[in-house]
């Protein structure tokens, strides 16, 4: 479990993290989402014990990161931003070093080593210097380091940053597989990641907590939530008719591909009436879709504080 209470970090006049209170429970993958420079990494550095908070507290598995720092660090697996590691060491040497510093007993260490190396598919590069590895492999070595001691709490700062789509997929599967009995906090600025991984999202910008919700709840905030979009030949005629439906708030046409989006009035379901109308009009609909809502739009709306034009 990770809890922060009014966690604050100032650099001179700049407030990097402003009274942040979040809570991640076992079995949960909590996504810390925000634009670059929002304070995600600073918050994680305080939870990891690397930075001292200016005020407020953070606890890992109930251990205060300031007063019971070692206990908190033992319970935590942490992948710092950029996955730093000792480049002149081989992968094997590096992981053995981590096992030793973490005080794993020889037999436990060997078992965990084999398991982690297998899980992250590092067998073939074990004897290579970390400096010579690709970015994706280095990130995997960083992940291996973080989970080597089988920690109940895992904190990953941009775990898929700079990976290709296949590697991203592999890392997400790994996180998913570990999520069941662990508490996982990941930071990201990738919205697809929230969909793929998180069961709760905390959005921060300029150090402040702006939203704490499930991805579905966030999507529901989008004006696209419940909207119906379709592509059809000669749809120009029907636009006016669609706009006259009592449940419809507005109609928009994409000037590029002619795709029509119909927005519902609050609380209305419009898929059926729209479909019915289209049938009545005898329009050839090539494809029709009920939108879940667009996270990127909600994200912009929340982090920029702008009203999205209706």
């Amino acid at each position: 479990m990770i809890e922060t209470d009014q966690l604050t970090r100032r650099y001179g006049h700049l407030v990097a993290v402003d009274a942040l209170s979040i809570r991640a429970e076992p079995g949960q993958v909590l996504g810390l989402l925000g634009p670059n420079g929002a304070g995600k990494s600073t918050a994680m550095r305080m939870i990891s014990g690397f930075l001292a908070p200016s005020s407020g507290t953070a606890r890992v598995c109930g251990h205060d990161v300031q007063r019971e720092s070692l206990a908190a660090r033992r319970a935590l697996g942490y992948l710092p931003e950029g996955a730093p590691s000792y480049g002149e060491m081989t992968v094997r040497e590096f992981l053995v070093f981590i096992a030793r510093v973490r005080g794993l007993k020889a037999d436990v260490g060997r078992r965990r080593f084999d398991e982690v190396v297998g899980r992250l598919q590092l067998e073939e590069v074990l004897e290579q210097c970390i400096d010579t590895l690709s970015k994706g492999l280095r990130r995997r070595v960083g992940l291996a380091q973080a989970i080597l001691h089988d920690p109940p709490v895992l904190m990953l700062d941009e775990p898929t940053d700079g990976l290709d789509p296949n590697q991203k997929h592999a890392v997400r599967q790994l996180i998913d597989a570990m999520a069941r009995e662990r508490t996982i906090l990941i930071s990201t600025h990738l919205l697809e990641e929230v969909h793929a991984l998180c069961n709760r999202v905390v959005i921060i910008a300029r150090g402040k907590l702006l939203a704490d919700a499930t991805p579905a709840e966030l999507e529901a905030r989008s004006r696209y939530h419940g909207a119906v979009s379709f592509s059809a030949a000669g749809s120009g005629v029907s636009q006016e008719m669609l706009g006259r439906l009592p449940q419809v708030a507005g109609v928009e046409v994409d000037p590029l591909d002619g795709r029509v989006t119909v927005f519902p009035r609050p609380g209305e379901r419009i898929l059926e009436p729209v479909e019915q109308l289209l049938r009545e009009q005898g329009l050839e609909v090539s494809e029709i879709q009920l939108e879940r809502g667009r996270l990127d739009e909600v994200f912009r709306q929340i982090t920029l504080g702008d009203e999205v034009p209706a």
Partner: protein
Amino acid sequence: MNPVMAVARRELRSYFVTPVAYVFLVIFLVLAGILTFYVGDFYERGQADLQPFFSMHPWLYLILVPAVSMRIWAEEAKGGTLELLLTLPVTLLQAMLGKFLAAWLFVGLALLLTFPIWITVNYLGSPDNGVIVAGYLGSWLMAGAFLAIGTCISTLTRSQVVAFILTALVCVLLILAGQAQVIDFFQGTLPRKLVNAVAHLSLLRHFEAIARGVLDVRDLLYFLLTIVAWLTAGVLVLDLKRMR
């Protein structure tokens, strides 16, 4: 394994997988030889002892120890591994000790590798080997003091060059404080007690005392306290950096 030993082992390994160790060892041994025979007049003195050898060590360390110590923390800060290391369950003191011990053992190894000169002097005459052992001990303690200073200064900056220059500067001041010329220079202008106090701070005095074969507890304490003080200061700097 004890975290101190784990950190020390990693550090020691890193010396030997990079060229640092070999460059250092070669330069140290070559310079130690040249200085002893050419500057120290090893043969001309006609005495079977290693006084000329040991008297060059402060000047040798002045250049070479900062080259070892400069990277100890600056490199970690620059490469981002500081965040990795300090979020592992290791206290600042344990990390500091591990790194210092590795560097100290490494310089100790360099010192041991000068054994041919000891064989030489035993072949040429019959020196007092007790004094020579004391000389080695004093030299190693002095290297430790320099290393502690350099390790502390390395916490202050990400730049290894800055760490090198600052360390060399502090070390040269500590050497010069005990030189007769410096003491004479201040004798007239400063109060006698102050001059004495500064002279006692000098590494050189304590080193020379040990190297003469006089193992005085005060000299040993001087070096150990110097090491402890600078390493403690380094730990405080690292702790302060978490708050800054």
